[in-house]
């Protein structure tokens, strides 16, 4: 039973992280303001929120370059929809006007016409006292992403697990080169195969996520193509290894190729997307460090890291299962053909 602890831990971590990843609410946000431009004169804005709780007497106002415009009337239709009438004054300064409703706001929601040097008589509304929520455990509500931000806890751990499994594979390959022991070759082969399972899952889940946020199943993003090329390189590893009949030669050839494959993997996934010269849709790429405070807030981290650890545990477990089965098969072959 003593070898079971990490398997149980992996399952518990994945379960806890997955349930939390699905249950934690998104922070309230404004998702739509219509119309999207204002000009001096009367206008009625239709404001749609997500996870908001609009109520009568909601504090609604516009902000343009630090100056406030107060509504002449606010009609709250339901928790997440309200109409606000404004008399837009002439002479607002900035091109874009922000919309505030209760605790949430949308920056640059309104394109502004009739610009000037600022309102002459500033209006007296503005933000109320800052509302502090003692238990505010919620995921960031980001434009375009919305609920799909939860995918971070499902899609990204696939890639971490793949990296660990390919790492195990390259270590086994180096040991195979050093010792000429065929058992290391077997380990390298099976961990690469298990890594490819997670690579495939990462590609498919990423493709679905890309469709919902970037608008296409596949884009020419540098990280996408890097991942696809890496997958092909590892498939070629399996093809190469399968094409050499003599076991000793097969082990050496496959091991040397695997070391090159791993170097290329690091290059395509960890280095190329981070270069300043390339632009990428993935966060943390195009010259930025991954997972800055902006990309990954503390609420997401609390769920993300256990998910990564748990999935790595599941991946390694799957690999050890295949390895044990292959060893059994090996013994069986030896017994049949002594």
């Amino acid at each position, binding site marked *: 039973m003593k070898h079971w602890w990490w398997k149980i831990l992996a399952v518990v971590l994945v379960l806890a992280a997955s349930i939390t990843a699905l249950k934690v609410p998104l922070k309230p946000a404004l998702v739509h303001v219509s119309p999207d431009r204002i000009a001096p004169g009367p206008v009625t804005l239709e404001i749609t929120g997500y996870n908001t709780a609009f109520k009568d007497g909601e504090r609604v106002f516009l902000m343009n370059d630090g100056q406030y415009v107060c509504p002449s009337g606010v009609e709250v239709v339901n928790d997440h929809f309200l109409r606000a009438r404004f008399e837009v004054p002439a002479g607002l300064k900035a091109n874009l006007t922000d919309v505030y409703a209760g605790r949430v706001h949308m920056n640059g929601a309104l394109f502004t016409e009739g610009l000037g040097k600022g309102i002459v008589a500033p209006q007296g509304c503005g933000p109320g006292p800052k509302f502090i929520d003692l238990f505010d455990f919620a995921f960031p509500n980001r434009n375009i992403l919305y609920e799909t931000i939860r995918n971070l806890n*499902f899609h990204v751990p696939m890639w971490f697990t793949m990296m660990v499994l390919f790492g195990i594979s390259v270590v086994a390959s180096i040991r195979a080169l050093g010792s000429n022991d065929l058992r290391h070759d077997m380990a390298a082969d099976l961990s690469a195969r298990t890594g490819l399972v997670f690579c495939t899952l990462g590609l498919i889940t990423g493709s679905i996520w890309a469709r919902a*946020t970037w608008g296409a*199943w596949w884009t020419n993003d540098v990280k996408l193509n890097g991942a696809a090329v890496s997958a092909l390189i590892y498939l070629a590893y399996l*093809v190469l290894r399968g094409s050499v009949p003599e076991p000793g030669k097969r082990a050496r050839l496959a091991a040397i190729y695997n070391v090159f494959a791993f170097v290329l993997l690091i290059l395509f996934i960890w280095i190329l997307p981070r270069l300043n010269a390339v632009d990428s849709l993935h966060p943390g790429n195009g010259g930025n460090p991954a997972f800055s405070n902006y990309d990954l807030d503390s609420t997401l981290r609390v769920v993300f890291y256990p998910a990564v650890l748990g999935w790595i545990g599941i991946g390694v477990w799957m690999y050890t299962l295949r390895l044990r*089965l292959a060893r059994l098969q090996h013994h069986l072959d030896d017994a049949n053909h002594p």
Partner: protein
Amino acid sequence: MRTIRRAPAFLLGMLMTGATFAQGSAPGWLEEQLYHSGKINTVIAVVTVIIAGIGLWLFRMDRRIARMEARTKK
């Protein structure tokens, strides 16, 4: 060996379906499904793919063990 032969075809197929879907611009049925209620269905699809993938792996593992069992019985 069969896996190795099938995998590149699968990957290629994936890439090609991606290329053809990407050309549509008018929001269709799928768009409606994905954008519905904060795009939560995207998360459901992703979780479904992962569970189905692990399930497929289990199924193939089962077949490997069954083949070995058949050999030991001989």
